[in-house]
């Protein structure tokens, strides 16, 4: 076992607990195919009056590939102009090869009050190695996105995890304040723009395939389930 993986699995459990305490779990059409017990691939979704989709996606390939991956997003309801919560981690036994966390602007824009709180939370965190962001990422992530690669020390990994978990607590505290703050059309457009750019991330399917998941399943999942458009 590894200390890092233990921290990450604790983090996964805390995130699920936060979702359970704040929202109601629901079965999303088509997602059950990618949530098979024993397969090492978990996909679960929750929602409440303020958030329309809390999604946790975990691929546990510790035994087969020596890797563990988690992807978490929270999309607000369409009447709510709050930012989109995101946290992604991929980790080997002894290091996080990538960790990304952001409150990404939605219909409330870069100046949304929750964005300011988020910026404050990551202000003092300077990862040992900052990543250059590609175009699709620059289109949607905030200027204060936490992007760290090659995180080898336990302290730094724990700090990233704590920031992401504390910000999820804060997110659920604050998001109801912004219910009925915006026209649905504006949020739909912002969410679809976000989803479109996320779908341009070439690393998502590559990483999932490198974890040993079937190629066809990964392609379907990334195309239709991970960041679906709202009709």
């Amino acid at each position: 076992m590894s200390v890092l993986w233990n921290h990450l699995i604790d983090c996964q459990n805390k995130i699920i607990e936060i979702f359970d305490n704040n929202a109601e779990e629901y079965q999303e059409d088509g997602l059950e195919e990618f949530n098979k017990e024993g397969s090492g691939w978990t996909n679960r979704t929750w929602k409440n009056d303020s958030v329309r989709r809390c999604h946790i996606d975990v691929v546990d390939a510790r035994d087969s590939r020596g890797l563990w991956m988690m992807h978490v997003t929270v999309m607000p309801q369409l009447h709510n102009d709050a930012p989109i919560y995101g946290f992604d981690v991929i980790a080997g036994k002894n290091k996080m090869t990538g960790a990304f966390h952001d409150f990404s602007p939605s219909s409330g824009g870069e100046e949304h009050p929750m964005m300011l709180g988020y910026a404050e939370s990551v202000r003092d965190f300077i990862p040992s190695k900052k990543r250059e962001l590609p175009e699709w990422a620059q289109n949607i992530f905030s200027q204060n996105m936490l992007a760290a690669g090659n995180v080898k020390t336990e302290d730094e990994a724990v700090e990233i995890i704590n920031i992401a978990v504390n910000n999820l607590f804060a997110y659920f505290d604050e998001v109801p304040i912004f219910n009925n703050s915006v026209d649905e059309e504006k949020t739909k457009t912002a969410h679809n723009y976000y989803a479109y750019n996320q779908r341009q991330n070439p690393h998502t399917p590559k990483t999932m395939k490198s974890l040993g998941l079937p190629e066809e399943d990964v392609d379907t999942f990334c195309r239709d389930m991970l960041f679906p458009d709202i009709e």
Partner: protein
Amino acid sequence: MSKIKELTWEHHKNAERQEFAKLLIGGNISPDMYATYLWNQHKKYDLLEAIGMPHGIYHDIGDVRRKKLIEEDFNELWQHKEEPVIVPSTIEYINHMKTIMHDRDALLAHVYVLYMGDLSGGQMIKKKVPGEGRMYDFTNLGDVKEVKEKIRELITDDMADEAMYVFDSATKLFQELMELDIERTVESSD
């Protein structure tokens, strides 16, 4: 009645004069080059359709969306492991859309140029491109003329500047595709 056709005429013709457009119309384009074109078009249509839906555009004109059909055409033709190149003008288009995503009129200018192109010139090249040419198949919508009319009804002269941008973006795409190191044409069968 909008004069957008006249207002954008030069930009439209300039796109049609490009070497790439001639390859398409002549039916001589290689599957790889056409698939690279489809890949870049898919980026544009996927985005336009994602942000156009919340504005009710496809409710008003009918479901002309092409994203899935372009995907099918692309999958039929592209036999390589690596994905095709995304040319600079496509990236520029994606960035540009961020600035207009909440502007329904600007999005309608894109609808005008792209779908009217598919419904008009697209019908002529449908049989000349490699593969099934699903992208140009509008049989699900019934009368193509009616769909074109519905689009025209929503178009106004003040959308001309944005429509010119879309034509110019297509011109750049055509030029950039010709600069790529792809086998461009298929050998004539006779």
